[in-house]
């Protein structure tokens, strides 16, 4: 017998249930792209890279972007002042990423993954009680995206797609810097803690 969930998951549960833990990010976001990372050690182009796999990678990224739009949308009522202004802009930028990725998938002959209804995201997210909860959760989600993009870029066959994805990665990295700064009193060492951005930075 299945028991309907009556309480929202906490942050960690959400990431686990959604398969969005940082270590699983690549596997989930780029589901269907096959294979592990053994090619990285060889230093040669990934022989399994194909246009079909590129399309699957972009469609996986689209899922992440749609989730990010939902996170910022849910969080906005909790925010005030500069943090709210940043969050509004970040939501709009995530939406731009989603539109661009969907367009690319379509141009490659695929069907873009569709965003879930807003209530479905809301029910799956942990309970956010205020700005602090939101900043932590949004940072986690952005980091999941960063991990996925850093792992996904070398798997893309098309150089122009790698450039597009890298430009999105950099935008997500800027979001994390701002979110971490908002939590850490705008200290540079908190906002930008690692010289090689991997999506593991937390405050």
């Amino acid at each position, binding site marked *: 017998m299945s028991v309907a969930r009556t309480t929202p998951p906490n942050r960690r549960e959400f990431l686990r249930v959604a398969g969005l833990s940082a270590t699983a990010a690549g596997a989930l976001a780029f589901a269907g792209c096959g294979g592990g990372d053994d090619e990285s050690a060889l230093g040669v182009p990934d022989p399994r890279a194909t246009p079909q796999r590129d399309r699957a990678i972009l469609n996986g990224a689209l899922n992440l972007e749609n989730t990010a739009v939902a996170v910022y949308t849910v969080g906005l009522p909790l925010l005030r002042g500069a943090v709210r202004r940043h969050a509004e802009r970040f939501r709009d930028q995530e939406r731009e990423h989603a539109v661009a990725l969907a367009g690319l998938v379509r141009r490659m002959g695929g069907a873009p993954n569709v965003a879930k209804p807003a209530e479905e995201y809301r029910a799956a997210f942990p309970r956010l009680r205020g700005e602090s909860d939101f900043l932590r959760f949004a940072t986690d989600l952005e980091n999941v995206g960063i991990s996925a993009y*850093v792992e996904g870029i070398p798997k893309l066959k098309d150089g122009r797609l790698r450039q*597009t994805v890298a430009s999105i990665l950099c935008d997500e990295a800027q979001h994390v810097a701002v979110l971490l700064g908002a939590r850490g009193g705008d200290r540079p060492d908190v906002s930008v803690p690692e010289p090689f951005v991997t999506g593991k930075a937390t405050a």
Partner: protein
Amino acid sequence: MSAPALTRRDLAAALAASALASAGAAEARARPMGDREVLLGLLALEQRSVVVYEQIARSGKLSGSAAAAAALFGDQERRHADALTQALRGMGATSLPKPPSPQDARGDAGELIRLAAEHEMKCIRAYYEAHAKLRSPALLATAAGVMANEAQHLAVLRQLLGRDPSPVAFVTGEG
């Protein structure tokens, strides 16, 4: 006396440098040209970044979080340059670009921060271009991590200038 413990960040940086060096060695076996030329261009830019932040720090014109950012970012640029140097040595490159000579930084604090921001834009653009040219997966992954770090520097510098830290959805180093 015991050696200082490695932090998680030190370890991550060491792993990135090691991955680059391994990729570099494999790259040398697979394709002696191509990725190496791209890395040489990136190294020259990273060396310039180190000098830019050294000049700014030496000027004594920044204080507080701006001075802290310049010191931190200079250190991170040095890590990038070290990793690229290791990778190039692993690829058998013997002739590496020499770091540029430091010059006196001119201008007030705002101008120095703008100088750093403009240089970060150049670096982002170079890594953006590199993403179309690099072929080694390990080099691509590391280049992505470095490019994202430069984008974060730019965001903080823009905040210090009172500007929107993240004004565009696609960060390409242009505009």
